[in-house]
């Protein structure tokens, strides 16, 4: 009997080593850059990192990223802005950050190809909500004040959950233990495909059971009213510039009250929902909610149309 147990343990170890090797050989694992809080209190990626972002069990999607010296994924290192040229900034979360594509094929690059006289700077960071986006703009006011237009991507269902800026808990993900675990590409891969989720759920359920914590009952709250209140609070706190800033939105996700408020108060918006619905092809990636190339193409077209309609070049 001991022989079976011993063999089981030995084979398991060999198996783990072989899998580690296979994951590395086929590069199935995702490479995440490291994060930090900069001198302005803005959470960003540690500058000058390169790697590959991999999505799906079988490398369904691979994107090369390049974190520039400013801490965002971009082809540009130079984020200095000239008063004579036209610059547009796109601020947002992982959809704008674009780890799921090659950094040379981002939404910004797509816009620049269609409007060669305009430079598009990217400020995308996975997990940013509106408070973090507005905090970034305010913290780097010396940079943003000279940018001609700022497109802020806001996902209504996720980005208005708070009405004030707080440093997120994401930084705690980069603990020394986590960094050590990340050395095993098999662990990184298994975690990303959700293979550890049942274990994590079981541990959480056991802890709750031991502590006697019951699953909180989901209270029916008026989320839309909360989101609207948070939005109002944020634009007041950060003195939102309605002339320069434009919200990139999926109208189909927004409440009618929120949309009415934006209209009544003359907020500039770009709605991409109708063009998304028109196209029958998938706009998102495999095992991922992020936009695929077609989705990004549609978004880029929407931004280009907006810039054209605004006649920014003529104004300048």
């Amino acid at each position, binding site marked *: 009997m001991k022989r079976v147990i011993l063999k089981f343990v030995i*084979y398991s170890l060999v198996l783990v080593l072989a899998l580690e090797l296979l994951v590395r050989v086929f590069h199935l694992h995702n490479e995440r850059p490291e994060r930090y809080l900069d001198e302005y209190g803005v959470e960003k990626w540690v500058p000058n990192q390169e790697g590959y972002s991999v999505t799906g*069990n079988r490398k*369904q999607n691979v994107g090369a990223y390049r974190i520039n010296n400013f801490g965002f994924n971009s082809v540009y290192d130079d984020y200095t802005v000239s008063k004579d040229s036209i610059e547009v900034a796109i601020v947002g979360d992982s959809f704008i950050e674009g780890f799921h594509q090659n950094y040379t094929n981002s939404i910004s690059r797509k816009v620049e190809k269609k409007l060669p006289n305009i430079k598009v700077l990217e400020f995308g960071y996975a997990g940013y909500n509106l408070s973090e986006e507005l905090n970034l703009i305010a913290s780097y006011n010396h940079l943003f004040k000279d940018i001609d237009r700022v497109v802020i991507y806001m996902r209504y269902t996720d980005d208005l959950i708070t009405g004030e800026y707080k440093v997120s808990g994401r930084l705690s993900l980069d603990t020394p233990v986590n960094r050590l675990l990340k050395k095993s590409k098999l662990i990184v891969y298994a975690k990303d495909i959700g293979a550890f989720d049942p274990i994590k759920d079981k541990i959480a359920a056991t802890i709750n059971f031991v502590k006697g914590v019951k699953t909180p009952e989901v209270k029916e709250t008026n989320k839309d009213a909360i989101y609207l209140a948070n939005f109002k609070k944020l634009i007041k706190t950060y003195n939102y510039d309605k002339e320069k800033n434009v919200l990139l939105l999926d109208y189909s996700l927004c409440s009618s009250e929120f949309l009415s408020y934006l209209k009544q108060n003359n907020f500039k918006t770009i709605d991409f929902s109708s063009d998304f619905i028109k196209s029958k092809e998938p706009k998102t*990636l495999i095992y991922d909610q992020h936009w695929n190339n077609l989705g990004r193409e549609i978004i880029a077209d929407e931004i280009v149309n907006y810039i054209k309609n605004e006649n920014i070049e003529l104004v300048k």
Partner: protein
Amino acid sequence: MLFNSIDFAIFLPVVFILYWFVLNRNLKAQNLLLLVASYVFYGWWDWRFLSLIAFSTLVDYTLGVLLGKEEKESKRKIYLWISVIVNLGFLGFFKYYNFFVESFVDAFTFFGQDIKVGSLSIILPVGISFYTFQTLSYTIDVYKRNLEPTKKFIAFAAFVSFFPQLVAGPIERASNLLPQILKKRTFNYCEAKDGLRLMLWGLFKKVVIADSLSPIVNDIFSNYSTLSSPVLIMGAVFFAFQIYGDFSGYSDIAIGTSKLFGIELMSNFKFPYFSKNIGEFWRRWHISLSTWFRDYLYIPLGGSRGSKMVGIRNVFAIFLVSGFWHGANWTFIFWGLFHALLFLPSFLIGTNRKYAEVKNTRLNVLAMISNVYRTLLTFILVTIGWVFFRSETITDSFSYLKRIGSSFSGIPYIHPNGYRLVDYIVLLVFFIVYEYIIRNNERKPIGFKNRYVRLFVYILLVFLMLLFYDDGVDRSFIYFQF
């Protein structure tokens, strides 16, 4: 508790250690452990239904003892009928009550009579069809004097609820399982090793074949009315492999787990998709159920011994009951009827047992081509049958099949989650080739002599499990609903 869950990954080693390291000198204690473990295993899903198993156990144990003592045939018959009524009564109530009520109402509505009979909100206890048939086999065997009744209640209760096969089989015969539970078990290294290999193979079939095909099959069967013929054919073929991977995977894990406890369960699947006719298919698919019906229904009805008409009646009886056993829906009954019709020609011309004996003789090219043709034809027919099995209603099944024959053009299929279909087709080709290689012994799927080949297969199987692991799918086994 699911075999493919963290709960089971913790539960199994704990029971294994207690069984072999703590209680190995005491058979009664080992059986008590098996009983408690089995009740924990089942109660993990819903402890309230343990009372059903306990009651069934008590009834059949008592009747078994009474049958052992009683000599008068009339009284023995009464005891048998009590067991049949109690067991099938529970099964009928929990599984078929609403079906009969609804069919009754539909029939009256059809003839213009509007009657109101309320259906009940009944939860179907997991595995009720499996353990009911298992306990019934005990009473019938004791009644027929094929088996001595046991007076050891703990052992009998452990036989009824033996956790590896409690909820989805194989449906064990008392004559095979009970003597093993009554006998002192000793740890066998080779058996345990084979058990672990079977468990790995079963897990692979469940996680990689069944679970990964499931979302594609669900999508195709839900939206069949808008899809083209090639996509619908692919959906039906995928389902054929999904249900095979799911159910045979469960059986393999069950048999493997049993081996770890020194108990041998019967084989439930013998590579059914390599069958060359329907008769052979049913000797390879869900064997424990087919043989149960053969021994306790077909043969008592007269089997094929009487006139041709009696034989035909018995064939229809066994297939219809088998279909109905699967679920309270006309789709299953029609599936059974469809198989009866497929089986009938070979039954009438007497070729239904043509491939009963497995022969490993060398074949010439012509015979090989003929075998491939017969295998493909059988697979196609079985797959058409699966359309009835998988569809929500009879109307859906016919519409699905009709579209296969009529809608040859359409837009390329794209799953809402964007699954890359070529991955799954390559996977199935790999699976079929591997099954063909191991086709001679379903009990030793990784029985290669060379240890490096075995190691390569272990790594490959686990690697594929990672490559096709889908955290969004429902992990329960299809046959739990039966």
